[in-house]
């Protein structure tokens, strides 16, 4: 029989004793954990198990870009910066009290971006009944797996995202008809709004995502039957208008603007060409702004890069938390102009 060398024997004994110690430690940890979980339901235990494998993100309680832009953007940026493919993302909306279709649209676009990177995303709905109703009715769960209460299952609210086509004008035409039904009681075309939606969809792809094949946009429409109002939120996760403009400008040209707020305002007013002397072809933003000035829609808000502009309230803010993309929000109501209004 072959003799085991004393050195090897010593090593094997040591290895065995280390293994035993590890087992004892693990059993102790498991006992402690079970003690902690005592009294929890199976659902709660499963939730704890799933969360322990994920990175948890919690949005602010007021999850509205218009009311709480800085904190919402901080949350979204944290979410976007998650790069670990092996660790899934868990979005815990439990404490959210206010949620709007704009932030739902932007959240969905970030989730899609994470999914494109191969990161799995899961989450929990708000506990607050009203907030839960808003998200369930929004159409969010047509893209994200999740159960919807029966009372919230039928809703005119819609979310569409870029599908096979870059510009989905047939889908937006139907959405505009529905929005006009909410506002006027009758399905009507609204050519300026449809034109604007085509503009935004095309812009998001042709300008917002240079050098990228993963071109995405999200449109969310909320119907308020009581106030006869339809609110639109359009978001793309591209590079943002200011960054796109800056890509085309030299340092000398950049100095012609007093800052990013001035630059964005100038782009909407269609004066980039006259300010810089460049042959500037961008007609999309001025056309959108002209429609706003002609009262075809109201309550126009744009957030892009580090600029927040609320045109209605003449409020411009330079944000601390920059948004890598562009967010548009506007409303249609009975005070807006449309063809045949006075007929």
């Amino acid at each position, binding site marked *: 029989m072959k003799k085991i060398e004393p050195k090897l024997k010593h090593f094997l004994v040591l290895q065995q004793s280390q293994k035993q110690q590890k087992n004892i430690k693990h059993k102790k940890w498991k006992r402690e954990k079970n003690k902690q979980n005592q009294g929890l339901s199976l659902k709660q235990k499963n939730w704890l198990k799933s969360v322990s494998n994920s990175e948890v993100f919690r949005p602010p309680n007021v999850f509205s870009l218009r009311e709480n832009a800085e904190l919402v953007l901080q949350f979204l940026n944290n979410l976007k910066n998650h790069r670990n493919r092996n660790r899934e993302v868990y979005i815990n909306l439990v404490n959210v009290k206010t949620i709007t279709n704009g932030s739902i649209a932007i959240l969905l676009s970030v989730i899609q971006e994470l999914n494109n990177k191969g990161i799995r995303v899961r989450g929990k709905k708000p506990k607050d009944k009203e907030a839960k109703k808003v998200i369930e009715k929004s159409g969010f769960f047509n893209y994200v797996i999740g159960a919807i209460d029966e009372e919230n299952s039928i809703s005119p609210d819609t979310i569409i995202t870029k599908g096979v086509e870059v*510009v989905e*004008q047939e889908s937006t035409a139907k959405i*505009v008809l529905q929005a006009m039904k909410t506002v006027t009681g009758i399905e009507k*075309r609204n050519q300026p709004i449809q*034109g604007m939606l085509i503009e935004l969809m095309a812009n998001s792809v042709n300008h917002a995502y240079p050098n990228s094949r993963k071109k995405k946009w999200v449109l969310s429409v909320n119907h308020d039957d009581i106030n006869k109002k339809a609110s639109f939120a359009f978001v793309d996760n591209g590079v943002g208008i200011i960054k796109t403009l800056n890509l085309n400008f030299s340092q000398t040209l950049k100095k012609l603007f007093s800052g990013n707020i001035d630059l964005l305002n100038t782009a909407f007013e269609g004066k980039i060409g006259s300010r810089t002397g460049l042959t500037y072809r961008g007609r*999309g933003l001025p056309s959108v702004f002209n429609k706003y000035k002609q009262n075809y829609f109201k309550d126009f808000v744009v957030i892009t890069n580090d600029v927040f502009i609320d045109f209605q309230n003449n409020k411009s803010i330079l944000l601390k938390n920059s948004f890598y993309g562009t967010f548009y929000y506007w409303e249609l109501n009975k005070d807006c102009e449309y063809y045949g209004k006075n007929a």
Partner: protein
Amino acid sequence: MEKTLKISKDFSPTPGARYRTDGKFSGQEFYETVLKRCFEEILKLKYKLKIILDGTHGYATSFLDEAFGTLAKDFGVDVVKNNVVFISEEEPYLVNEINEYITNAHS
């Protein structure tokens, strides 16, 4: 004599964006499949072309710029201006916009 082209009927009630790569019913598609041929035909017959913009769900500026800007580039600004009349009751401002795209078309 004149020939009438109604975009909603002769092309699509849902015109799209600028290029074919953007999706269906783009300005480029409209120019290449409908407008160019129609314009060549009226020039041959010495007719005028009446283009009715009404009846669609709405236009993006990129659609109009691509279609009518390219027409002006290919046939000349004056030839287009002298032979085309635009009608829009639903969005009257479009006529001025299109005339601007024609005038600024680069050859």
